[in-house]
């Protein structure tokens, strides 16, 4: 039978389009959130972060939106490029406990030239 977790959600976009990747986080007490990008054979790479007292933060070509009411996080990538192709993970941190990251399910982004 099929193993849970082997098939990542996928998003396929054309080069130059905007991409939106969504994430539902688990702990309402989490107060810090990070998006990581992971290319094949590499470790996760930090993209952007946001604290729970904010609902939006912008970086270079990326924007993170946080909706604490429904425990939802999104990553928007503007003018997506082939080099953006990777698996994207959201992660949450709960203050007061260990500083460990709790990762969500990843999304595989494929950018077609």
């Amino acid at each position, binding site marked *: 039978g099929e193993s849970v977790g082997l098939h990542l959600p996928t998003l396929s976009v054309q080069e130059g389009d905007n991409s939106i990747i969504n994430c539902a986080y688990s702990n309402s007490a989490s107060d810090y959130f990070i998006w990581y990008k992971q290319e094949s054979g*590499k*470790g996760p790479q930090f993209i952007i972060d946001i*604290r729970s007292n904010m609902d939006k933060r912008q970086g270079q070509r990326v924007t993170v939106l946080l909706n604490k009411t429904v425990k939802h996080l999104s990553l928007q990538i503007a003018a997506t490029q082939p080099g953006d192709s990777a698996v994207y993970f959201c992660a949450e941190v709960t203050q007061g406990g260990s*500083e460990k*990251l709790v990762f969500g399910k990843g999304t595989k982004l494929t950018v077609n030239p």
Partner: protein
Amino acid sequence: GAGVSQSPRYKVAKRGQDVALRCDPISGHVSLFWYQQALGQGPEFLTYFQNEAQLDKSGLPSDRFFAERPEGSVSTLKIQRTQQEDSAVYLCASSSDRRSTDTQYFGPGTRLTVL
């Protein structure tokens, strides 16, 4: 500057063998983390060090897993009597301070395959 490095990059072990995985964090980083990443899934926390002190080992799946950081820099994750379910990528991350909002920088990982 140099990032987090891990060795070996690939390790094949026969079931029952012991393995040792090494992590060299970014120089001066206080916090060090180990994560396990199964195929197609996100990394899962194993253990956390602040300098040489192991402050959280709640993610270690069994007593076959042991981690140390004796001098507060290099860390070793040891797995005794490896089992097939231990096959995964083992990631190490470090951060500069002990605040929860300090960015964790990841190494490339060690891919462990247990036959």
